[in-house]
C-alpha cells in the first residue's frame, strides 16, 4: 500500500493492539490520532480513545492506563511535547512502558509548523528510549517494535519514536504491513500481567522517597535504559525475521568502509545523505553515512566504531542547544573523544537536500585537509 508516515504509525499502533489512546491534536501529528480514532469508531480496533483537553492530560492518562497493565499510546509534537513534559518525565522516572510518536517540529516563537528536532531532544533526560525514523516503512516497523522494547521485562521504560515533520509525517511512500498473527506473536501480552494498580496486592505508588533511597531508584532506571540497547537490537533482528525487511538496530552504517568523511545524520533526511554519498563516491570522494536510529540509549560504541579511521566526522544537527552547540554533535564528541565538524542545518524546516549533504561532506574534507579542529558551522546561513 501507499501511506504517509502518520498513517503508517496508526497502522502500527493498530497492529500492536494498543488498548488506551489518549491524545490532543497538534499539527503535524494530528493524522495519527485521526486515523486511530477512525479505526476504533469503525470497530476495526478494540481500544478506548480518550479525547483529552491537553497533552499534559494525554500523558497522565497514558500513565494511569499503563499502571493498570494496559498498552497505552499517544502522539504529539513541538509545543504539545513541551506542555506534556512534566508527565513525560513522570512516565520515564515512574518506569511506565508507554509508547509515543513525536512528529518533530520547531518550537515557537515565532510560530512554525516545520521540521526541527529540538523538541524531541529536550526530553532526552526523561528516562525514555528514543528512536528516530528514516522512512514511512520504518515508522510503521518502529511503532510495533516500540511496544516490544518498552514492555520487555529487562527494560520496562517508555519509548518515543520521532518522525520528521512533513518530510516523513505527510510524505507518501510504499508501505508493507505485517499480518495480525505475526504482530501478536511478536508482541505477547506483558509477562505476568504486570501492573502497578492491583487490588489483590494493593501498593502505594510514587510516595515520598528520601535521599537514602532515590539514588538506587535512579540507578535501576540507568541500568535498564542502558541494557535496552540489547533489547532494541533483538527486537530489530526478530522483526527483520518476521517481516523479511532489514531493520536498522541502533546505528545504520552506509558505505562507511574506507570512507574519508562520515556524515552522522538523524531522521528522514538520512536518505538524502546516502544519495549524496553515492554521488560523491562516483566522483571518487569516499563518503559514508552513519545514521543514528536510536538516540537514547546513545549508541556511543557503535558510533565510535562507525567513524573509526575516517579523516573527518561531519555531524549534521537539525536542532540546537544555545550556548553549547548541536545536541547530536555534543553526544558524538563525547562518544569519539574529539569535537567533530558540527553542521547546524535545516533549522525551522529549511530545506536540507542531497546538494547540501554533498556540500557538507566536501566542506568537512577541505577543513580536515587544512588541519582545522572540529568546530560548529551554521550551514547555509544567510548573511
Amino acid at each position, binding site marked *: 500500500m501507499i501511506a504517509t508516515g502518520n498513517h503508517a504509525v496508526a497502522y502500527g499502533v493498530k497492529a500492536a493492539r494498543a*488498548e*488506551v489512546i*489518549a491524545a490532543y491534536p497538534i499539527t503535524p501529528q494530528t493524522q495519527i490520532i485521526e486515523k486511530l480514532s477512525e479505526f476504533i469508531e469503525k470497530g476495526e480496533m*478494540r*481500544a*478506548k480513545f*480518550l*479525547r*483529552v*483537553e*491537553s497533552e*499534559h*492530560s*494525554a500523558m*497522565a*492518562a*497514558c*500513565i*494511569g*492506563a*499503563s*499502571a*493498570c*497493565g*494496559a498498552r*497505552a499510546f499517544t502522539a504529539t509534537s513541538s509545543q504539545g511535547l513541551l506542555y506534556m513534559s*512534566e*508527565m513525560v518525565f*513522570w512516565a520515564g522516572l515512574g518506569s511506565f512502558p508507554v509508547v509515543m510518536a513525536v512528529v518533530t517540529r520547531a518550537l515557537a516563537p515565532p510560530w512554525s509548523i516545520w521540521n526541527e528536532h529540538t523538541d524531541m531532544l529536550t526530553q532526552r533526560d526523561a528516562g525514555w528510549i528514543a528512536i528516530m525514523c528514516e522512512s514511512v516503512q520504518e515508522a510503521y516497523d518502529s511503532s510495533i517494535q516500540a511496544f516490544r522494547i518498552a514492555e520487555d521485562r529487562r527494560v520496562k521504560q517508555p519509548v518515543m519514536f520521532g518522525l520528521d515533520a512533513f518530510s516523513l509525517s505527510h510524505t507518501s511512500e510504499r508501505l508493507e504491513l505485517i499480518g495480525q498473527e505475526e504482530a501478536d506473536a511478536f508482541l505477547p501480552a506483558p509477562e505476568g500481567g504486570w501492573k*502497578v*494498580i*492491583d*487490588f489483590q496486592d*494493593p*501498593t*502505594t*505508588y*510514587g*510516595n*515520598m*522517597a*528520601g535521599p537514602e*533511597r532515590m539514588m538506587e531508584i535512579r540507578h535501576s532506571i540507568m541500568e535498564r535504559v542502558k541494557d535496552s540497547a540489547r533489547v532494541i537490537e533483538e527486537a530489530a533482528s526478530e522483526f527483520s525475521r518476521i517481516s523479511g525487511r532489514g531493520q536498522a538496530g541502533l546505528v545504520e552504517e552506509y558505505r562507511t568502509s574506507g570512507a574519508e568523511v562520515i556524515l552522522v545524520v538523524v531522521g528522514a533526511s538520512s536518505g538524502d545523505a546516502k544519495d549524496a554519498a553515492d554521488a560523491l563516491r562516483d566522483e571518487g570522494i569516499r563518503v559514508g553515512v552513519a545514521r543514528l536510529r536510536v538516540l537514547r540509549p546513545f549508541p556511543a560504541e557503535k558510533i565510535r566504531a562507525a567513524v573509526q579511521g575516517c579523516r573527518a566526522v561531519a555531524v549534521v544537527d537539525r536542532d540546537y542547544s544555545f550556548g553549547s552547540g548541536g545536541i547530536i554533535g555534543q553526544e558524538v564528541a563525547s562518544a569519539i573523544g574529539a569535537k567533530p565538524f558540527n553542521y547546524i542545518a535545516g533549522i525551522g524546516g529549511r530545506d536540507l537536500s542531497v546538494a547540501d549533504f554533498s556540500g557538507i561532506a566536501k566542506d568537512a574534507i577541505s577543513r580536515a585537509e587544512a588541519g582545522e579542529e572540529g568546530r560548529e558551522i551554521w550551514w547555509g546561513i544567510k548573511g
Partner: protein
Amino acid sequence: MVGHQGITETFTLKSLTDEEYLLPGNAACPGCAAVMAMRIGLKALGPRTVLIVPACCMSVAQGHYPKTPSKVPVFNTAFAASAATASGIRAALEMKGITDVNVVCWAGDGGTADIGIQSLSGAAERGDDLIYICYDNEAYMNTGTQRSSSTPEGARTTTTITGKAERKKDVPGIMMAHRIPYVATACASYPLDFANKLRRAVSIKGTRYIHLLSPCPPGWRYPSEKTVEVGRLAVETGAWILYEWTGGRCRLTGPSSGLADRSRRRPLEEYLRIQGRFSEADPSKIEAMKKRIDEEWEMILELCKG
C-alpha cells in the same frame, strides 16, 4: 433518602464498617481533618477503590516509601494531573473488563481549584467515570499556607499577610455547570453526612464531585484538638453550606438543612475568632464577608427551589 438513585439505606455509626483502610502511623499533622475524612471515606468506598493523589498534603501524610498507611491502592500523580490520570485508569480497567472498582481522586484545593482545574473540567466534560474529592483546607498548606483561589476572603496566608482581598472560588458551582450527575459539599466534622454522600456518589455512573471542607490546625491557626469544633462552626454559622445536587436538583443536608433562615445561624464571629487566620479582619471586612455568605445562601436556596 427516597428519591436518590439506587439508595435504599444510609450509613449510621453502627453500619459503617469496623474495617480500617487507612491505618494509624501516617505522617499527617495532629488534628488533620483531611486524614480523618479519608479514614471515613475509605470505609464508605470499600476495598475495591483506587485513590489518585496529586501533589498535596496527602503526598506527605501517606509517609515515606516503602511504607504506606493505605490498604487500598494509592497512585501518586503530578499536581495538575489527578483527573486525567484517573481517566486513564478507568479506561484501562474498562478494557480489562473490571467494572466493580471506585476510581477516586483525592486532591487538595490547589490541585483542584487552581492548577488541576483544566484536567478536572476535561474529565467532567467527557463524563469519565470517577469520583473526585477535593479536600479543601483553603490554602496551599503543604508548602506552608500560601493563598489559593479557594482561600476565603479575609483569610491571612503567607502570600496575603493582611488577608485575602478576593472571594473564594466556587468550584462546586463550576462542577454543576458541567451538568455532571452528582455534586455535593461536605465537611470533615460531619463524617456520616460525608459517608452518605460518598455512598450516593458510588451508586451513580459518570463524573461525581464532592467538595469537602477540611479545617487545618497549622494553616488556620487554631489548636489541633479543635478541628471538629472549627468545622462545625463553619457549618453552624453558615460560612460553609452542606448540600447535594443530583440530577439537577439541590437539597440542603445535615445541620445546613435547618439554617436556611439566617436568624438560626450562629454569629459568623464565633467561627472567625476561634482561628488566627482572620485576625486582620476588621468589622467592615466581617460585614463584607457576611454579605458574601448571604449571597452564597441565596444562590443555593434558589437551586433548592428546583
